[in-house]
């Protein structure tokens, strides 16, 4: 196995590779990364049918086939069988919200019966959300491999523009293309991703499938079936929460947040935050790591409840993500906050940002949620950007009712935020 550097151009024969039987594997550890093989004509996406990804797992003649998904996306290529109009095949990794370089590992392995090469892409990346990894191209009657490791901060859209195409628009085949034109069905990536997330849940976390469907009903009822949000889960780690962590109630809530994200977020990711006295980022929850997620957090409970620092963190991250999508914050707590003036400032200031705060109080008995009630009705905000509800502990609320509570007012906020120009 030869280690390949960026910028190399190598005849496949030099790597002892047979262009008619190539196995390509992309190992990427960032959840939510999509790997696509683009069959191009002179650098342009001339025929959508040669774009092979989860929604179209094979090219018309099976020349390019998707044979594995997940952390290791695999393709089988028979380059010799491709029509002459396909002059190159580019493999690309894209992520909707995060730079692909955030993957701990991003490597491409090209192998065959003998020989092969591997290419470590990660060191070459900066802030690209769409990265061309390698390309196979015709040169002088033979196929060559080029290692690219370049891309676009703007993600898939920018990449498709680079290939001269448009997302969800017809890409008619060129007149010179000997193969018949592709059916003019635009690729609705959004719906497809939802479907893929559901399929994935079916395969790996079947108990989540009903939750996702239940979440969907609550969203559809509010006209939010097409809505796109970043979903954040903010968890109280004050000492009094101990029983909720031990009983698995927090894990259950996390799975419900994930079910919402499977509908609202293209990647089905939930960014998780913890707060007690301090605020902490706790990584991303996804279908890939949902099982036992809260246990693995190894939460160390803290002796206090301060909303403001974690609200600041959430706002900073939303801003860093460009505030292009609204953020739904599911804020789980079992008590009121210290430093209430700071919290009120956070609420008031963030009312001009595309963030909706959903406070869920876990009522351990004897706790006063007056402050959260007050936040819900706080004056001086650009729009009403928060809702509060409480449920008694232990949580026995049936899921359909819980999802209703979790998305209540999200639709009215979305309308007012749009009217106020806070949300496009």
């Amino acid at each position, binding site marked *: 196995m030869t280690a390949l*550097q*960026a*910028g*190399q*151009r*190598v005849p496949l024969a030099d790597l002892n590779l047979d262009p008619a039987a190539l196995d390509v594997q992309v190992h990427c550890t960032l959840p939510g990364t999509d790997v696509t093989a683009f069959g191009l004509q002179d650098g342009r996406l001339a025929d959508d049918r040669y774009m092979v990804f989860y929604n179209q797992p094979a090219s018309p003649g099976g020349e390019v086939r998707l044979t594995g998904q997940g952390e290791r996306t695999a393709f089988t290529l028979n380059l010799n069988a491709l029509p002459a109009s396909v002059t190159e095949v580019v493999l690309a990794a894209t992520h909707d919200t995060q730079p692909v370089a955030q993957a701990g590992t991003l490597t491409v392995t090209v192998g065959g019966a003998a020989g092969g090469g591997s290419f470590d892409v990660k*060191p*070459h990346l*900066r*802030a*690209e959300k769409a990265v*061309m990894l390698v390309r196979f191209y015709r*040169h002088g009657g033979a196929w*060559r491999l*080029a*290692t*690219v490791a*370049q*891309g*676009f*901060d*703007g993600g898939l859209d*920018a990449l498709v523009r*680079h290939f001269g195409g448009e997302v969800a628009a017809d890409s008619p085949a060129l007149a010179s293309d000997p193969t018949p034109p592709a059916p003019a069905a635009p690729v609705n990536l959004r719906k497809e991703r939802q479907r893929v997330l559901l399929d994935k849940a079916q395969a790996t976390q079947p108990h989540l499938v009903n939750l996702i469907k239940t979440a969907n009903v609550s969203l559809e009822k509010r006209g939010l079936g097409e809505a796109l949000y970043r979903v954040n889960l903010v968890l109280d780690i004050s000492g009094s929460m101990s029983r909720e962590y031990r009983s698995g109630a927090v894990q259950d809530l996390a799975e419900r947040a994930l079910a919402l994200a499977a509908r609202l977020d293209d990647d089905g990711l939930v960014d998780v935050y913890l707060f007690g006295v301090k605020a902490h980022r706790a990584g991303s929850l996804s279908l890939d790591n949902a099982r036992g997620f809260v246990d693995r957090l190894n939460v160390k409970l803290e002796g206090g409840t301060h909303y403001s620092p974690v609200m600041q963190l959430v706002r900073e991250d939303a801003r860093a993500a460009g505030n292009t999508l609204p953020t739904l914050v599911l804020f789980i707590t079992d008590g009121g906050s210290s430093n209430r003036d700071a919290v009120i400032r956070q609420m008031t200031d963030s009312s001009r940002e595309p963030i909706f705060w959903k406070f869920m109080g876990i009522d351990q008995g004897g706790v006063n949620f007056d402050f959260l009630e007050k936040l819900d009705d706080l004056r001086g905000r650009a729009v009403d950007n928060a809702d509060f509800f409480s449920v008694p502990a232990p949580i026995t609320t049936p899921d359909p009712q819980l999802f209703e509570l979790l998305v209540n007012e999200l639709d009215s906020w979305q309308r007012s935020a749009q009217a106020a120009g806070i949300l496009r």
Partner: protein
Amino acid sequence: MALSLQKGGNISLSKQDANLQRILVGLGWDPRSTDGQAFDLDASAFLLTAAGRVRGDHDFIFYNQLRSAEGSVEHTGDNRTGVGDGDDESIRVDLTRIPADIEKIAVAVTIDQADARRQNFGQVGGAFIRILNEDNSQELTRYDLGEDFSTETAVIFGEIYRYGGEWKFRAVGQGFAGGLGPMARNYGVNV
């Protein structure tokens, strides 16, 4: 019709144009189309004796020394991004004024800050060198380097050299490890 050369090929410039006196060496490449730091390519020329060495540092023409001592070779300046049609950088050579002890002018292109920016010629598209008759802007020959290099950060694109009583051009396309500094030292420049 200008003759397009392959790597290693050569052509007699004098035979292409019997009245040839001054030439323009044009170098070009495609600007970066992806996000990230631009490709800043720098052209240099080395005036070399029969021994393949410079006579002194004044025979090394680059962005910090744009003219040779007697003025026969002149670099027209640095283009930082490759944006713009046609030649991105060019070097004027007055063949009639090349000192008699200079046998050969090597034209090289290096990538500025290649290591820091993790760039190499394999990532640069559309690189070419061409020779024009400066007096009538006729293209005499060109060499498209396309596939001829990959991970190099310094490449000798071509050489203009004396052969009998003529001037010839050779499409070299030879990579050089280490960049401009080691290349200059190899030709005997004190850097």
